[in-house]
């Protein structure tokens, strides 16, 4: 597997707080990478750095280099809008817009200049199919997105992210607000999507990381302690702290 994302000596500060410390990391293409670690360890911060969502928090400062397919995403070469089109994101709480299901999916493509109704219809259908939601909602696309269940809303948000044709999909604890059955559906979906997309997920649930990811990164106090193939990291970690964490001794 070739490397798609690479962080080199990456440091991030929120005003005075040193949130990410000397992060060095590579993330492979078309695979699932999971970020694990206790809360406040920096895993979500790094995730939000990948599509520059941290830019919106006043006082954020970044040092070091973060490249995606060789391009420094904090350089002038990339517009933040382009970056976010290529790097989609799904959040902890489902956040559908207060619009119809159709308009939720079409929102992104419309932003990026697609106007033809026929093309939009096509995108809506394929995105909903990719997110395994098409069969459940195809008969009421005009209904409010707030009328469907929480699990369906989260899959709608995934479909919405896929609709702008990203290469990378970030998932920030995307199942933590869902019931077990909905969680299972999303996990299955992630398995299906990894052939086409590079997926980076933050999870507070180690078992989830073990179930769905190919590579796992363990964070502690803003540092990357260890990253490796998921199987290896969970069965034979190199660092004592990793072992303590995955065996449930803290966190």
């Amino acid at each position: 597997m070739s490397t798609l994302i690479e962080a080199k000596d990456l440091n991030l500060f929120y005003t005075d707080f040193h949130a990410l410390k000397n992060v060095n990391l590579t993330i492979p293409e078309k695979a699932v990478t999971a970020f694990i670690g206790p809360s406040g360890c920096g895993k979500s911060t790094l995730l939000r750095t990948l599509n520059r969502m941290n830019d919106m928090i006043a006082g954020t400062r970044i040092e070091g280099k973060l490249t995606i397919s060789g391009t420094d995403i904090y350089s002038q070469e990339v517009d933040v809008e382009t970056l976010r089109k290529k790097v989609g994101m799904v959040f902890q709480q489902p956040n559908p817009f207060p619009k119809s299901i159709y308009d939720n999916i079409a929102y992104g493509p419309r932003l990026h200049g697609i106007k033809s109704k026929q093309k939009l219809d096509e995108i809506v259908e394929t995105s909903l199919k990719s997110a395994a939601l098409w069969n459940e909602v195809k008969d009421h696309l005009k209904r409010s997105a707030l009328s469907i269940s929480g699990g369906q809303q989260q899959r709608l948000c995934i479909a919405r992210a896929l609709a702008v044709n990203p290469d990378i999909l970030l998932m920030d604890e995307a199942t933590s607000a869902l019931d077990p059955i909905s969680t299972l559906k999303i996990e299955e979906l992630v398995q299906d999507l990894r052939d086409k997309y590079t997926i980076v997920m933050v999870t507070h649930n180690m078992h989830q990381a073990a179930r769905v990811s190919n590579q796992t990164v363990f964070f502690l106090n803003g540092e990357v302690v260890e990253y490796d193939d998921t199987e290896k990291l969970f069965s034979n970690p190199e660092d004592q702290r990793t072992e303590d964490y995955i065996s449930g001794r803290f966190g």
Partner: protein
Amino acid sequence: MPNKQETTIDKTNASSNPFKNSRVSILNKIMPILLFLCAIVSVFTTIGIVITLLSETVNFFREIPIFDFLFGTKWSALIEPKQFGILPLLAGTLMITSIAIIVALPIGLASAIYLSEYAPDKVRRIVKPILEVLAGVPTIVYGYFAISIITPIIQFIFPSAGVYNALSAGIAVGIMIIPMICSLSEDAMSAVPRSLRDGAYALGATRFEVALKIVVPAAFSGIVSSAVLAFSRALGETMIVSLAAGSTPTLTFNPLDSIQTMTAYIVQVSLGDIAHGSIEYGSIFAVGMTLFVFTFLLNILAQYISRRFREEY
């Protein structure tokens, strides 16, 4: 209530029934009634407004047929032959209100979007108090602003404009209601959850696209109700129009003409010496009633909009 009393009572009552303290419990019973009376004052205020307006208006309509009042196109209350057709006053009022809304709505909304979506925290902390100050300036001061600054500028641009004209007063009223539209709309926009914005930003939306396509639609009912409230406020504005718009009730569509609003008429009559029971005295109430009905309906509409269409993000 003073401490002393109760401690002495505690002693006197202690012997009879240790669980009963009569003076304290009397106070405990009387106070709710007194407080209720305070609360009911506001209801009586409304009833008082409605009854006084209604009874004097009915008297007025005994002399002036209601049809002539509502549809008459000439208002000449103080000069013979007296005529009481409210349309010129209504037209004057609507002209002022329309100018004010045309000025205030775009500026107020744009400022609200700036403050809620673009402004850094520091700027917001400075601008919001300034807008509060602007909202607290008495309307008589805006009236001075209209006649000493706005009117000369208008006369410079349009030499045909009179010393008193609707445009000047309308602009001043508009400036007066900007803070109201801005702060109420900004409240509505700030109430839109962060997560919706994040969702749009994560799809590659620019700030303007987030504001226009996510925040404004989500806050729409709050924005509309702020505009309706501002409209109602402009409708009832008195001092600015009395000072700057003139006192000639004419049915005109030229904003450079001198006009008269309903409120300015009431002031004009009140400044003179009017006999109780005279037709002029009655006309204050008829005009006041018209104004009250309009503002009341607008306020109800604003409340209905913000309740009926409350956003469930």
